[in-house]
Every structure is written in C-alpha cells, then in structure tokens.
C-alpha cells in the first residue's frame, strides 16, 4: 500500500497536499479499498465554505454511502470535474487523478492535527493489526472447537 511522502493525512482517511495556502484533498488508498467500487461522488460547489471535521461530500459504493470529512477549513477553489462521470477514478488513482477538491485554507494551524505519511502508515497498520488480532483469536477458538469434537 502506498503512503506518498509530502502528503498529510487525517484519521478519517483523507489526504491533503499543501501548496502555500492551497490544499488539495482526496481519500487515501486504504479508504478506497475499504469502500470497494465507487459509483458516485458528491462534491461541494466552487465558492462553498468547508469546515474542518464536518462532511464536505460523500462517496458511494454500490453498497453504501460514506461521508468525506474536511481535514481543514477553507473555501472551495476547484472541484475535480472528472469524478461525476468517472467516480471509479478514485479507486484507480486515489492520490492522483482521483483528487476531490482544492480549497484555500482559512487557518494553516488546522494542519497540525494531521499525520505525516510515516505516522499514517503506522496508523493504518495498527488498524489492520487490530483486525488481524480479532481473526487470530477467532482461529484459536476454531481450533478449540475442533479439539472438542
């Protein structure tokens, strides 16, 4: 799994590319993998204000809808016009062509709460390990059950 250096990451699995006061925002490779086939993307309009930790849009798989949370506050400068007709671009290239919006940040202090690539990689690893531990426990239980039978 890829964790591009130079990006910032949120606990809700969004990434941010900072260039001066401009932030480009998308969802991470881990997030798109968890969601599965993305078939619809809802984006804010240019000029709209987004607020840190509030939903600014949504991605939908065939199965379910998930909110996308703003990792920073700001005003929307640009949205990715490719996504409405090609939502699967987020699955194919989450850190590239699958970017979602570009905003002018209100407060660069918002970035302090975000993780580096290394920290995020560790965060994802922890989440996966938590899952794996569950599974290992389960497998042990299975073995015990077999012993009994």
């Amino acid at each position: 799994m890829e964790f591009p250096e130079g990006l910032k990451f949120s606990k809700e699995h969004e990434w941010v590319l900072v260039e001066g006061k401009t932030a480009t925002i998308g969802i991470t490779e881990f997030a798109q993998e968890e969601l599965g086939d993305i078939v619809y993307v809802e984006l804010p309009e240019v000029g709209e204000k987004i607020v840190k930790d509030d939903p600014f849009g949504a991605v939908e798989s065939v199965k379910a809808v998930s909110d996308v949370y703003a990792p920073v506050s700001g005003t929307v400068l640009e949205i990715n016009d490719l996504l409405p007709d090609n939502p699967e671009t987020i699955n194919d290239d989450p850190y590239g062509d699958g970017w979602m919006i570009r905003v002018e940040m209100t407060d660069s202090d918002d970035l302090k709460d975000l993780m580096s690539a290394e920290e995020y990689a560790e965060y994802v690893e922890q989440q996966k390990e938590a899952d794996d531990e569950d599974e290992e426990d389960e497998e042990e239980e299975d073995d015990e059950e077999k012993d009994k039978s």
Partner: protein
Amino acid sequence: MTQGLKRTPLYAAHRRAGAKVVEFAGWEMPVQYRGVIEEHLAVRSRAGLFDVSHMGEIEVEGADAVEFCQRISANDVARMKVSQAQYNLLLNDRGGVVDDVIFYRLEPNHFLICVNAANSDKDFRWIREHAEGKVEVADASARYAQLALQGPLAEKILQPLTALKLGEIKSFYFGFGDVASIRCLVARTGYTGEDGFELYCPSGDAERLWNALMEFGAAEGLVPVGLGARDTLRLEKAYPLYGHELDDTTTPLEAGLEWVTKFSKPAFIGREVLVRQKEEGVKRRLVGLELREPGIARGDYPLFKDGQPVGRVTSGTKSPSLGKSIALGYVAREAAAIGNAIDVEIRGRKVRAEVVPLPFYRR
C-alpha cells in the same frame, strides 16, 4: 465486535479466497471477493457461486402437513407436486409479512421451507406456535449448507458433476442426486434473475462441494460472489428483501405480491384483513424508481410528489447492469402511477426520479 456471530461451514474457505467479511443477520458473511460490480457482471454474463448457508431450513412433516401449510401461508401449497418448489409468504393476522420463503415439497406430506437468516428463529417459533393436528416442525438449519450457482452457464458447469438430468429440472422444480459425490437437493431456483441452481447439502460436505464447483467452473469463468452483488442482482429484478421491502407491517397487496396470495383458498392467517384491504384498495404501494438526476437513493430516504411527502425508499443502488440509479420504495397510492415524477431527498437535496415499470432488468 464479532462475538456471538455465526459462521457457515465455508467461513475458512472465504477467508482464504480473500473475501471481505461483514456481519449480516447475525452471521459473518462474505460481502465481496474481487469487487461487487465485477461479481455482479460475472453472474449476468457467465456464472457465480454464492454461499447462502446462513439461510434457515424448517421441515414440516405429518399427516396434516398440507392442511397446516395451507393455513400458515398465502400461496396454494396443494398445487405443488412432489419435487416442486414455490415462492410463498408467512403472514400474521394483520396481513403483514412474517417472512418470504420457498416451500419445497419433498414428499406428499413433507415440506422443506427455506427462510431468511434474520427470521430463522422467529419463523421456527411462529410455525411451531401455530402447529395443529398431526404435524412435526423441526429446525433443520444447522444440518444444511446451501450454495447458489447462478448465471447463464450454471447448467453447463453443474452437469458434468452430476448424473441428474438438469435439462429436465424446470424452473421451480428440484431433484435429489449426487453432485461431486455429495448428496444434494438440486433446485432450479435463485435470487438473481438468472438461470441457475440452489444446492442443499449436509453442512459437513459444504467445503468439498464448493471446491469441486469452483474447480470445474473455473474454465467457464465461474467466480465466487458475495452478498454485495447478491443484493444488486436481486434489486435489478425487484425481488423483495425482508427487512427492506417486507416486514411485519407490509402486506402482500402493498408489496406487489398479490400473485402469491391465493384468495381462492378458503382460509389462511391474514386472509380477512387482506380481503378487506383488497376491497378498499391499498393506501401505499411498492414502486420502482429511476433517478433522473445524479445521486443514489438509499433505504429510508424520504420521497416527495409536488413537494408533499408521499413515502420512503426501501432499497437503492447504482445498477451495475444498466448503469442507472435505481430504487424501490413505498409511496401513497395516488403517487404510484408509472411515469409520475417523484423527488428523492438525498442529504437535504431533492433529486428528481420517475416511477418506472418493474423489474428494472430483464434477461
């Protein structure tokens, strides 16, 4: 989080196949292997194999079995021949749906009822409570595993593995025979809108059967399919899903299932209420909706006509076969006509939709 959840005999096989496993109706079930859309399209064009062992099986047997089954269900069980299957409804005394089920007539006085996983315990209790006369009711759920082999190539894949003449098993009929040396009930039924079979086998043989089918089917492009695609496949065909389109308060007349409800039978639980509802006309009806603007309708989203609330969505998705955004929902009778403009409220935004004929997808 996963404590207390049940597993089918194929759980380990799903894990090995890389399935994403989720909780469904108290079971840990594979929701997808390679991806919902890919699996959906494989079933429409080739074939897919589903583990549906979470479904419950209840057996009813005895000298009064026919009479009893007639009373607890809406369809005419007596019309079934031995080796025939029938879609049926268990109704409560308010005409609401306890469950939608398949009856299999194993012998003249012996029925197997396949019930929804989420309702398995409720159904068993309900059937037993209503038991009268010479009938025995048994919960056989743990004994059976169930695999569904669905898609246009299903017969081609299955035939080399069995001596049963599959060409002679018509839709909604079944036979008993060995498949890959495993004793099975092989029914030409399914929940995808494609030709295909549902195979009931002893739980302990499920993994061998699964592996044999996957091995022989691989050359024909058979893929394992999870519950995600099972849901999109059934939704394209407008097959109801209990807990969404059907529950204890919805009646078959509202749900478009009058064809299952045989008023010609003199008595069955719920009949009086339904006779009255038929005379008076239903207040709401299940309709198909196609969204005319971008967006996806999901269960429970409110529906409006000319600004007035008229109902709610029960299921919705982006149809992988049609590329359209489709939904089922209940609307007031006055709003239910084909061609009507309906608005779906999606996260506070009104999105234009149209009432369309069902099913959405035809083979």
